[in-house]
């Protein structure tokens, strides 16, 4: 996996934490724990009525409805396990597909199906992809829900997958922009928060799993279901980088790396997030 130097900032933070402790911050640590517990309780409460369940149902209807210039359904779509084999397919994505000669995530593979089976143009297939009313969001939520209970399994051993996993890891550590941020700035330290939000340490398999099993997810702060690509694009926006193009290789590479880190996690999407 990652080399040992990947963990250097964690050691440094441990030193900082020790210094903070020395200056009399013991009480604040207790306060941190209470805040985290309250947030978890709130999240559990919310998850009992996840609006993404409706998104999933609408996605299923869309999946089975003949549409597009070819007036066909998506029921023969091959997401990697064979035509029409949906169960557990999301948990094994992204992966290499010989027919397109590309490593594809669920979103780019879905578009391949919409073009091949239903006859949509690329532009029509991804129309309003960022919107809560987009076909992609509904369909991806349905697809992901068919992996509920399946283990994330992205070993990235196929050469093209392996290449993207390594590039995705390098991207994860790539600092640039006016705030010098990389993904790793926030996401490579165990047990830390930005404001009150816990941030997953994607170098830790248990954190990576806990995060990745929940996407796509209903975001309470946005009032929308977001796909993983939408989530990543927003992380990158917050880093003050420009927006990467939808379905671009950067987003695929990051997902290969993240899913590889999260492998073994049991899918529980659609989830509910802040």
């Amino acid at each position, binding site marked *: 996996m990652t080399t040992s130097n990947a963990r250097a900032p964690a050691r440094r933070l441990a030193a900082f934490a020790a210094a903070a402790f020395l200056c009399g911050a013991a009480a604040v640590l207790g306060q941190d724990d209470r805040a985290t517990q309250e947030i978890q309780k709130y999240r559990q409460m919310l998850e009992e009525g996840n609006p993404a369940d409706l998104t999933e149902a609408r996605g299923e209807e869309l999946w089975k409805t003949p549409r597009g210039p070819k007036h066909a359904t998506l029921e023969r779509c091959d997401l990697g396990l064979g035509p029409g084999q949906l169960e557990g397919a999301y948990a094994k994505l992204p992966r290499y597909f010989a027919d397109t000669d590309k490593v594809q995530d669920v979103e780019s593979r879905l578009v391949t199906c919409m073009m091949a089976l239903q006859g949509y143009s690329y532009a029509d297939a991804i129309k309003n992809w960022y919107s809560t009313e987009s076909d992609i969001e509904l369909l991806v939520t349905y697809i992901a829900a068919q992996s509920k209970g399946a283990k994330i399994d992205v070993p990235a051993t196929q050469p093209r997958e392996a290449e993207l996993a390594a590039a995705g890891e390098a991207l994860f550590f790539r600092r640039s922009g006016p705030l010098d941020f990389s993904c790793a700035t926030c996401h490579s330290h165990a047990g830390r928060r930005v404001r009150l939000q816990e941030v997953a340490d994607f170098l830790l398999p248990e954190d990576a799993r806990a995060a990745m099993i929940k996407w796509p997810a209903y975001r309470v702060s946005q009032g929308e279901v977001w796909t993983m690509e939408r989530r990543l694009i927003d992380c990158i926006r917050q880093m003050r980088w420009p*927006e990467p193009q939808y379905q671009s290789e950067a987003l695929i590479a990051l997902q290969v790396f993240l899913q590889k880190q999260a492998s073994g996690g049991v899918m529980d999407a659609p989830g509910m997030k802040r």
Partner: protein
Amino acid sequence: MMRATMPLIAALLALTSAGAPAAGGNDTAVKKAEEIVRKSFVEVTPDEWNARLQQDQTQAACSYYRNEPPPDIAVRIVSEAQASIRYPADGKLLGNWKEGAKLAAISTGGHIGKLQPDPPGREHGGNCYACHALAPQEVAAGNLGPNLTNYIKLRGNSPGTVKSVYDKIYNAHAQYPCSLMPRFGHNGWLTPEQVADLVAFLLDAESPVNKGQ
């Protein structure tokens, strides 16, 4: 200034001669990642590219070494960072803590793109609470960075400390190569006067930061 600088560089050079292992990134993967970045951000203007995606030497080195640069590179990063620091025209490094308190809470500014950009000219802040506990009244403080409540108790507020804290906020790499903290002054995110206001927020005895229990 030299008194503060020399021991750090000497310590880093000592590490070099001790032959500390220089664990680097994966060259092939970094090269591929750069190719991918060029292909993935297609609608970016040349100005946006230069300001937000093109890496300077420090960013590239800290990325490659995953924020743990080998000693020779660390020395270079620290020296460049120290040389980058500019001070307010009036020479006052301890500004107005009330202004600093506002800046510490502002998280907006500088978001671009089609989906959720900031209006042009929206104020930049330090967003310090994202990572640090400061004034004890603000409970929604992150903990990616050290807790800075009652900072005077920890550091005092001598002129040497004031300068050291100014330098840290202006360009954190001047004291810690590949620090995770943004280079607020060096990158032009905050003005030297705003950096001085943040220094006052931390080191003015009247600041709420120093009124913790």
